[in-house]
């Protein structure tokens, strides 16, 4: 079973939930692996502290134009859907904007004069690690200045062990990096907070996962006694509430230090047991 933990809004506690769930299941001896798919800002390793077993570099292809063979016909420029080829016919000028290139191969296909070849460009790294209990942890990290982490996410997920429960910590938002991660999941947990910000972004995330026809449920993090627009919304929409995690200074402090609160607090232990039961793990 593959569980994707996402949120819409940043900072609601995706990483909190996913690392605690991982450690909680691991503690019971359940086979579990973990992938940090927030490849722009991966944080899970600060908590899981896995031992690095190997590191793989993720590349993309970049076209190289041989201007001696190029006839400046402009076909590659016309085929590029991402405006990554700058072309001025009269001046016989052609060049590639590296950061706009999506590595689709359209220019290579377009060129009739064998003037385009490809070179490799590094996008980031995927680390394969092992927890103290021997379970696999992977994370991805994009290089600074790289526009999209999608390829690094795909490479990271491919390194999971394909046995037992797999937890994917997704990037924030609802655009392509999140959708890429969610597309790998059998179930999506959306973590939100009981505020108008949380609700607004939860609705966007719900719309996204419903559009992808994924099964999903919601965890409300940092719940308090005050007004809670999220619970009302969940009831009205008939969305499963997996758990409410109360705001607790102690939990916030442990977490800020990189500790795993579910291993420290019996209240939190009960809440995660409830999540486990509802997910039928």
């Amino acid at each position, binding site marked *: 079973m593959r569980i994707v933990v996402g949120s819409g809004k940043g900072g609601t506690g995706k990483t909190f939930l996913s690392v605690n769930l991982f450690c909680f299941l691991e503690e019971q001896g359940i086979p579990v692996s973990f992938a940090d798919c927030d490849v722009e800002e991966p944080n899970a390793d600060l908590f899981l502290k896995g031992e690095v077993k190997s590191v793989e570099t993720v590349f993309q292809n970049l076209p190289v134009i041989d201007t001696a063979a190029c006839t400046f016909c402009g076909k590659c420029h016309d085929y590029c859907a991402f405006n990554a080829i700058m072309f001025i016919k009269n001046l016989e000028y052609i060049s590639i904007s590296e950061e706009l290139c999506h590595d689709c191969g359209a220019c290579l296909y377009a060129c009739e004069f064998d003037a385009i070849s490809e070179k490799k460009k590094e996008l980031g790294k995927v680390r394969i690690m092992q927890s103290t209990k021997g379970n696999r942890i992977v994370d991805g990290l994009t290089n600074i200045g790289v526009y999209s982490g999608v390829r690094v996410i795909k490479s990271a997920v491919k390194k999971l062990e394909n046995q037992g429960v797999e937890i994917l910590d997704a990037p924030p938002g*609802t655009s392509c990096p999140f959708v890429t991660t969610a597309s790998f999941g059998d179930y999506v947990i959306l973590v939100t907070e009981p505020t108008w910000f949380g609700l607004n972004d939860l609705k966007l995330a719900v719309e996204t996962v419903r559009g992808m026809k994924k099964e999903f449920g919601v965890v409300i993090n940092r719940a308090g006694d005050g007004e809670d627009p999220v619970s009302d919304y969940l009831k009205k929409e008939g969305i499963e509430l997996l758990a409410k995690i109360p705001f607790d200074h102690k939990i916030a402090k442990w977490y800020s*230090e990189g500790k795993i609160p579910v291993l420290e607090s019996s209240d939190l232990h009960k809440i995660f047991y409830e999540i486990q039961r509802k997910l039928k793990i």
Partner: protein
Amino acid sequence: MKEIAIISGKGGTGKTCISAAFSRFVESVVMIDADVDAANQHIILQPDNYIEEEYVGGEFAKIDYNKCIACGLCASYCRFDAITQNKGKVLIEEAACEGCKLCMRVCPSSAISMQEDHESRWYAGKIKNGVLFHARLAPGMDNSGKLVSLLRTEAKNYAKTNNEDLILIDGSPGVGCPVISTITGVNEVVIVVEATQSALHDLKRAVEVSREFKHIPTVIINKYSLNEEISTEIENWCTENELKVIGKIPFDLVFHEAVQARMPIPDFAEKSEINSLLFDIWQQIYS
């Protein structure tokens, strides 16, 4: 005209509340919510939208099965694992399609066409002391950076025509395309960090991306009282790296209460200590 961007690396550090507060400390502001896939600024500033425009951000491939001969050539060319063949039937997964059109071009039976996304929108709306430019990117769409650039161009045009001096940009989390589009060419970058190990880690990446685009950012430490040791660690790291910490804000429920009341802090709690602290910080950014 001055453009100031507020970013964070990690999400949830308080960018939106802090930038909403800043926007109220000037007489007139042009505000941009550049977090186009999870915009929140409109909840606080409650704009009265006078522009709602479609943004055609992306395209994806669609198969006409009356024409498809199931040759599988498209699948062999697709580099995004977006096309699979199941018992002969060719399937395109929209979520994985990046809209490169190569499948359409290689198809021998012209069975593939491109469909545009018509769900994304951008808006401009009057707020109490200015205008808010914001947007809503359809789920799973590429090109969030392009949408941020569009908002910035529209905001700049508005500012020029109306002699506005200040554009304030509330950025998105991360260091990818929307953030790069947010900070490209602005006059100043401010990073909001919180007192957690994760936020410190993400701060370093946010600083790196700022430097890549020739900015020397200033730093605000939010919720420092959650963990003063880590807050000190962040300050030390900033000093070592010649970055100025322009303010430290304690954890305070007034932020949460103001969001629930859908108001910026200066309107919700004008007399509070947090408000005067925010005002002092703002003086260091813009005066």
